[in-house]
């Protein structure tokens, strides 16, 4: 008997599923995408995290980073004696101007010393190619993979560097990556630039000789006991090392590369859970619509089964099975798509994050999480459909359900509804008489807009940021950093260089700023009088006057310090006599990518009690600057040169690819939601009202006229809910931005009108596709058969 029941219901299951082909497909697609994003993103995050943690462990990534001006080697004993410090390694770190053959623009190398011919004990280099410099070599170096590839170098190739004003030949013997530079960024530049920046590892003796640093160090990395409060240790270290100048010690939590990787992982984790929620909600809703419809139409059958002695559990098991088969198909598709998304993302990450090996892997845990969530979705969808039917006795369930009592909607009192045509009234009441169904369908539809707005607004933010930064704030062609502070007259030397149109001199000073109980490391930039190459704009891109008496603070720093315009900041300078002074915040600057404080050069000189000095020159030059770059490479006081446009170009090329792929994938995802919701809503309406629609055709309505009534309800919902989707999209995007905000880099919240427009267009297109399928179904329907089915 049990076997008989089982096979009877299984046969019914197969029949139902083949009958619901298109609906099965559309639900499976929505579930599949939810699973794909959940699985793809969590496994990508896991792969990246694992790669990072493995690398940190195997390469002995340090916990603390110390930068000083110059300390004797014996000062290391002081550091070692601090309780909690388990290891100290001293080294030298310098920036140098590089001259690459066949490449006109000068590049910058950040040189880090390694024990002669040996791996350092901390932050060891993973060699992707070649070898370590030999112990006695003065010219052999290791460079980063990005720079190596950008310039199409081969091992053994040679380029030149200006070390302490002297030109030195360097020979590439290895290509490597260290845990300190997984994300490689030139200090002061917000974006990576593989053409103009590299980390260089070379023998300590060779570097020390060039900078006259034998038996001294200007950098150290430290290992500490686990679970120790870093802040306390940093205070002790700084107390000891303050006399040697420099910016002091930083924890791993402030180390640039670590921060970028950490933030990326955080973003992935947030996306992995925030995006699929929408898909699972929509899938649960559509499943509920479809199963509810099935249950309603099979009310008599269910009653008969109950009368025959089937238990509620057996009957529900059937509907759960229908849902689980659909969800199972979707999950399988999702897992495959997720694995593809994950491996593609890992490949894209490889361009920005340099790991020894970055391979895609996933654990069985993610597989089960994704499957589990999708089956939970199905259970919710089915449970809510079945609740009502089991409350009825078999006899009651065998009678047809009480027909819906239609009434005039609330809005019909206003008069404008009575002015509508009869067909429009049908559409109107079809929506207003079933408010819950309309609300759920409308929400389902507008979720596709939410997905798109939340995905595409990043591009708007970046566009605004780049526009503000590169058209209104940074008006220079390039920036020259000097080896040390010089007289303002040095700007004349730059102005005289061939191709230079104008040049301005700036002064930078490292500071610690405090407000209330917040403290941050930053840089104060002293501006010349009436700067022309640095602009100030507010959020509406209106130009502002430069600071006069006080300071301008970038919005990101102001937020971190919780400081507003008119507040007083305590500023501790990290050079000279390290003066501590209170400065008034004149203005908060929006749209700045860096953590920055701006004031006038004059004020800076007054505070530091020095002459007016400069250490940075901004210049604007003609586009063909071959001669200019050649001369810059020869200038002894030039420490580095950076180019506004090349960093921008690198970023745009890479991010454009990323964003394009992301936008395309999101559009397909959002389209799937739009299709799934619109199709199932119309399909269910069609099957529930087929009799009514057939009657209309018999009365003389053409297929397009009948179809327009059905479509009208969806269009009505679209018009009603698209603006709601915009609002939800706006709120969701704002929330995403807030949970993904980074300490060092703030993205302004901007959503362009075009984003709302495209999101709406994609929803309309996906609805149109589902409408077309429905139109075909109506056109192919047999009127007489439909009428007979109920007559």
């Amino acid at each position, binding site marked *: 008997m049990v076997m008989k029941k089982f096979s009877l219901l299984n046969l019914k299951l197969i029949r139902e599923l083949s009958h619901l082909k298109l609906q099965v497909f559309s639900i499976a697609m929505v579930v599949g995408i939810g699973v794909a994003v959940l699985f793809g993103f969590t496994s990508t995050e896991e792969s990246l995290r694992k790669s990072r943690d493995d690398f940190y462990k195997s390469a002995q990534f340090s916990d603390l980073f110390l930068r000083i001006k110059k300390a004797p080697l014996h000062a290391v004993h002081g550091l070692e004696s601090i309780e909690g410090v388990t290891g100290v390694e001293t080294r030298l770190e310098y920036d140098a101007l590089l001259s690459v053959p066949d490449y006109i623009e000068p590049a910058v190398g950040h040189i880090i010393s390694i024990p002669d011919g040996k791996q350092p004990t901390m932050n060891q280099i993973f060699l992707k190619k070649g070898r370590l410099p030999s112990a006695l070599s003065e010219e052999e170096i290791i460079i980063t993979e990005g720079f190596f590839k950008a310039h199409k170098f081969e091992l053994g190739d040679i380029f030149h560097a200006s070390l302490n004003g002297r030109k030195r030949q360097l020979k590439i013997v290895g290509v490597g990556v260290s845990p300190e530079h997984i994300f490689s960024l030139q200090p002061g530049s917000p974006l990576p630039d593989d053409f103009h920046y590299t980390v260089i590892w070379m023998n300590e003796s060779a570097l020390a000789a060039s900078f006259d640093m034998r038996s001294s160090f200007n950098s150290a990395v430290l290992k500490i006991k686990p679970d120790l409060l870093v802040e306390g240790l940093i205070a002790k270290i700084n107390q000891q090392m303050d006399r040697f100048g420099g910016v002091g010690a930083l924890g791993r939590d402030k180390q640039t590369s670590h921060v970028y990787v950490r933030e990326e992982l955080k973003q992935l984790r947030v996306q992995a859970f925030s995006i699929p929620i929408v898909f699972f909600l929509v899938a649960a809703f559509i499943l509920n619509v479809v199963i509810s419809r099935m249950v309603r139409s099979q009310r008599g059958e269910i009653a008969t089964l109950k009368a025959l002695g089937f238990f509620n559990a057996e009957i529900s098991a059937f509907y759960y099975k229908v849902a689980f088969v659909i969800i199972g198909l979707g999950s399988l598709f999702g897992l495959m798509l997720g694995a593809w998304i994950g491996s593609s993302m890992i490949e894209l990450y490889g361009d920005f994050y340099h790991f020894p090996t970055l391979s895609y892997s996933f654990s069985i845990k993610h597989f089960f999480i994704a499957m589990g969530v999708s089956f939970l979705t199905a259970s919710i969808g089915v449970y809510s459909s079945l609740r009502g039917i089991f409350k009825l006795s078999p006899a009651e369930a065998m009678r047809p359900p009480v027909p819906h009592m239609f009434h005039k909607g609330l809005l019909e009192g206003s008069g404008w509804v009575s002015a509508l045509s009869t067909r429009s009234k*049908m559409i109107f009441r079809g929506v207003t008489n079933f408010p819950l169904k309309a609300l759920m369908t409308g929400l389902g539809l507008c979720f596709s807009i939410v997905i798109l707005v939340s995905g595409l607004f990043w591009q708007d933010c970046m566009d605004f940021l780049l526009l503000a930064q590169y058209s209104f704030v940074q008006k220079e062609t390039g920036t020259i950093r000097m080896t040390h502070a010089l007289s303002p007259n040095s700007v004349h030397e730059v102005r005289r260089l061939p191709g230079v149109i104008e040049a301005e001199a700036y002064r930078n000073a490292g500071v610690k700023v405090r407000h209330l109980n917040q403290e941050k490391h930053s840089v104060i930039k002293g501006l010349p009088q009436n700067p022309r190459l640095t602009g100030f704009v507010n959020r509406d891109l209106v130009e502002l006057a430069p600071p006069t008496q006080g300071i301008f603070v970038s919005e990101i720093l102001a937020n971190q310090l919780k400081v507003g315009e008119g507040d007083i900041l305590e500023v501790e300078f990290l050079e000279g006599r390290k003066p501590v002074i209170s400065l008034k915040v004149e203005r908060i600057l929006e749209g700045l990518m860096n953590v920055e404080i701006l004031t006038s050069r004059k004020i800076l000189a007054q505070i530091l009690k020095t002459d007016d000095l400069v250490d940075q020159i901004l210049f604007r030059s003609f586009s063909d600057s071959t001669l200019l770059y050649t001369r810059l490479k020869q200038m002894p006081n030039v420490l580095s040169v950076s180019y506004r446009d090349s960093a921008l170009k690198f970023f745009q090329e890479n991010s454009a690819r990323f964003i394009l792929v992301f936008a395309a994938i999101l559009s397909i995802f959002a389209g799937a939601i739009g299709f799934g919701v619109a199709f199932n809503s119309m399909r269910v309406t069609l099957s529930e009202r087929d009799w009514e629609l057939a009657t*209309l055709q018999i009365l003389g309505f053409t297929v397009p*006229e009948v179809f327009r009534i059905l479509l009208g309800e969806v269009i009505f919902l679209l018009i009603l809910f698209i603006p709601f989707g915009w609002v939800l999209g706006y709120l969701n995007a704002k929330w995403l931005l807030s949970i993904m905000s980074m300490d060092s880099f703030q993205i302004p919240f901007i959503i362009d009108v075009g984003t709302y427009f495209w999101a709406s267009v994609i929803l309309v297109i996906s609805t149109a596709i589902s409408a077309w399928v429905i139109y075909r179904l109506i056109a192919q329907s047999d009127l007489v058969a439909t009428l007979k089915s109920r007559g």
Partner: protein
Amino acid sequence: MSILMKAKGLTKTYQMGEVPVYALRDVDIEIKKGEFLVFLGHSGSGKTTLLNILGGLDSATEGSLLFEETDMSELSDRQLTQFRRKNIGFIFQMYNLIPRLTARENVNLVTEISDDPMDSLEALRQVGLYERANHFPSQMSGGEQQRVAIARAIAKQPRMLFCDEPTGALDVKTGILVLDAIQKVNKTLGTTTIVISHNVSIAEMADRVVHLKDGRIERIDVNERQKTAQELEW
């Protein structure tokens, strides 16, 4: 009376697996303008199939059907829809009203797509439902709903009225009210009317009674005197 519709050799077969099943065999009939016809027969006799073909809802497998000069077998789906829209009013056993529209709106539905409709309230007045114009079907009795369906059918002033078991779901008293309304339409508007039924009593209203059996016309009776609906009993 001139001929409005002429069917010759109408045959309808359905394929059930490998066996053809005849729903209609070689039916010849001429329908005159303004005539009141009743198709009588048991279930499976072919009366609904014949009505569907005559009303442009279905097409015959063989035979010809002329509506005045138009050969209906030549018409496309779209043209058949136009034909129904312009010429035919339907009344069904289950009324087939649109539940979300009031009585008046159900009638308006048809008047909005017709060339020369009567006022929807006038149509409802003719079936005695002027006062119930703003009620939804769910607020009306079966008889009232059927009369709304009649109002809807006649509002476009059709050339022909097809009624498929119009009293099938109604009690005697209500059924008579409905038949009365149909008869009035036939007499006052001169609309050619075909009622199909298995109720022999209804046949007494007709000018002619077409007896169908096994898909064939068994015989056609002519009533010398047509009873009014009020005179009927069953």
